[in-house]
């Protein structure tokens, strides 16, 4: 069975990783022992375009839910990254300094952004969507925002 929910729009295959939790803006978290890992969804990277710079807060920074913890700068725009959860940044993905394209090529894997030690995990998890919920939202967005998908 696939790890992803998938849809095809135009020629693009868009995936949502099962088992992750999502904000409406397309940030995801995955649960790890004692911490959460944060990244952006396939839809976010596809609509944002090829990432040229990733700016992330430093290790040890405290962030609030919906607070900005970084930016993705692409050829055409700058995407503000709003945190799905409150917590302390344990690690920022240093590989993205030299290889920002990992956000595009592997948004659910090597393109992860930060890991957090969450402060209000139980409560804030309730504010996030399941993969199924985000998938439905993404399908709705595709109907209205598909012009943003960057072609090749």
């Amino acid at each position, binding site marked *: 069975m696939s790890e992803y929910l998938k849809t095809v729009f135009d020629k693009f295959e868009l995936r949502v990783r099962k088992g992750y939790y999502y904000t409406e803006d397309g940030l995801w978290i995955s649960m790890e022992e004692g911490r959460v890992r944060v990244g952006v969804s396939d839809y976010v990277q596809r609509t944002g375009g*090829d990432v*040229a710079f990733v700016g992330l807060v430093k290790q040890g920074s405290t962030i609030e839910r919906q607070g900005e913890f970084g930016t993705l*700068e692409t*050829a055409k725009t700058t995407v503000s990254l709003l945190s799905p959860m409150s917590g302390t940044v344990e690690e920022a993905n240093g590989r993205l300094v030299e290889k920002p394209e990992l956000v595009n090529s592997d948004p659910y894997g090597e393109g992860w952004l930060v890991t957090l030690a969450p402060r209000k995990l139980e409560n804030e998890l309730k504010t996030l969507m399941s993969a199924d919920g985000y998938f439905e939202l993404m399908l709705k967005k595709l109907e209205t925002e598909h012009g943003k998908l*960057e072609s*090749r």
Partner: protein
Amino acid sequence: MGNWSLGRMKVAKHKKVVVIPCSGIGKALGSVSREATYEVIEDFRKGVTDTTCLALIVSGNEETLQLVKNNKCITIDGCPLQCAAKNVKLAGGDLAASFRVVDTLRENRRLKPKTVTFLDQDGQELAHLLAEQVAEKVDELLRK
């Protein structure tokens, strides 16, 4: 950097540097790769550079394959897929240097090319800056 005189440097007869853009049709940076190529071959290093269609390389056109095997090649790619660099290499071309538009973009962060069909001012400026870098590499390759 303006036009450059052929007389200043000895150039092996019939040898040129072939500049090959990815020409990705869906992205602004694909158009930038193409524009930069034209600036190099028609302005900066006219006479000592040439270009060819990537599709002819990929489809195995014999004349094109001979061109890229017998001359040093520079590729310019508009996205991380690097179709031009990969396919020139795969075809056995003499890939002497590869450029990525995104690297020039990273050096010039203020530029945000948005349009694809006809490049906007930022796109043109990015192409021009990249063309200067490619022209320098052409000089280096011709000196060898």
